[in-house]
């Protein structure tokens, strides 16, 4: 029989271990989320990240080693983004009917997300690097990282802030929408997609196909609007 330590050394250098831990952590999160009737506070991404961070800290594993396994999951973000064309196509009549309202709401939401995030961080004394990293945080990960770099932020910090924002949008968003008594699935989906990009879209899709399609559309258009507008506005303000 081999020494357990040797087995650990072998496993920890292969992508299999961290790919499996990622899936197990997510399944635990998803199970809890379903057990409590999709309660937004038990967001599966949040639970999975908490589990994984604890495991990596306890086993003293660095993120680069972890990512060698997790990159296979990360990679699927690309084709999944492409696949968002399908719910969008299925809902195209609804989207076309409210195109004007949708686009106006989207631009307002998009600008208010970036402006309030940057202004609050700056007002509370964050440094310029953090302010630039936080401004594009409502945009989906790869685009937000690109924007952050242009503004002088730290792209890898932005990636984390984007995920935290998505989790916040998916957990607090539905509660706020209930408080505001907004029952229209189009408006709910759009709001969650603008504020919480793909994580918000994932949540919306689980609740309603209409909300999911509007959230996916909002995520795409928000990315487009922010990528074009934010660097221009930034150059003008600073």
């Amino acid at each position: 029989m081999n020494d357990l330590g040797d087995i650990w050394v072998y496993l920890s250098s292969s992508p299999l271990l961290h790919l499996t831990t990622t899936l197990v952590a997510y399944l635990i999160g998803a199970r809890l989320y379903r057990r409590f009737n999709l309660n937004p506070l038990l967001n599966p991404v949040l639970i999975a990240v908490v589990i994984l961070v604890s495991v990596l800290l306890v086993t003293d594993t660095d993120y680069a080693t972890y990512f060698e396994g997790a990159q296979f999951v990360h990679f699927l973000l690309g084709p999944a983004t492409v696949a968002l064309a399908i719910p969008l196509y299925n809902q195209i009549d609804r989207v076309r009917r409210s195109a004007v309202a949708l686009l106006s709401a989207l631009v307002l939401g998009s600008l208010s997300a970036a402006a309030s995030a940057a202004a609050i961080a700056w007002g509370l004394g964050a440094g310029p690097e953090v302010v630039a990293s936080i401004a594009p945080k409502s945009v989906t990960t790869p685009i937000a990282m690109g924007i952050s770099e242009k503004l002088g932020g730290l792209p890898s910090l932005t990636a984390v802030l984007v995920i935290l924002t998505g989790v916040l949008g998916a957990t607090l968003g539905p509660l706020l929408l209930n408080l505001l008594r907004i029952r229209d699935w189009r408006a709910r989906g759009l709001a969650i997609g603008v504020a919480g990009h793909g994580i918000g879209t994932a949540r919306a899709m689980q609740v309603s196909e209409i909300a999911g399609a509007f959230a996916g559309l909002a995520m795409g258009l928000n990315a487009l609007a922010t990528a074009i507008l934010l660097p221009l506005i930034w150059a003008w303000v600073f």
Partner: protein
Amino acid sequence: MLESLTLLLACQLVGEVLVAYFAIPVPGPVVGMVLLFIGLCIRRGVPAPLQQTASGLLSHLSLLFVPAGTGVLLHVALIREALIPIGVSLVVSTLVAVAVTALAMVGFERLSGRKGSGGP
């Protein structure tokens, strides 16, 4: 399943190439999404296998954000240092974005005089 997955990857690949060639400020997958959407409009319908693959992939969309989220490990020190500005900014701006977008959408819909079709 295999054809559908290949189609999704091909759209992404063409998207990446277009983005690199024309220096478009948008990521490749988003351009790929637009290409697939145009394709579906031309074809007037979603083939059943593609619908299945997409549903499978999208029903676990949140899983795909877990590796990037775990990257919080890299910035523990920086986040701890700026905990208050980062925390308050994230929470408040997310709530602002949700409220502004939803209220604007409902308001503009009402202005244009149409209602319904988005009800539960």
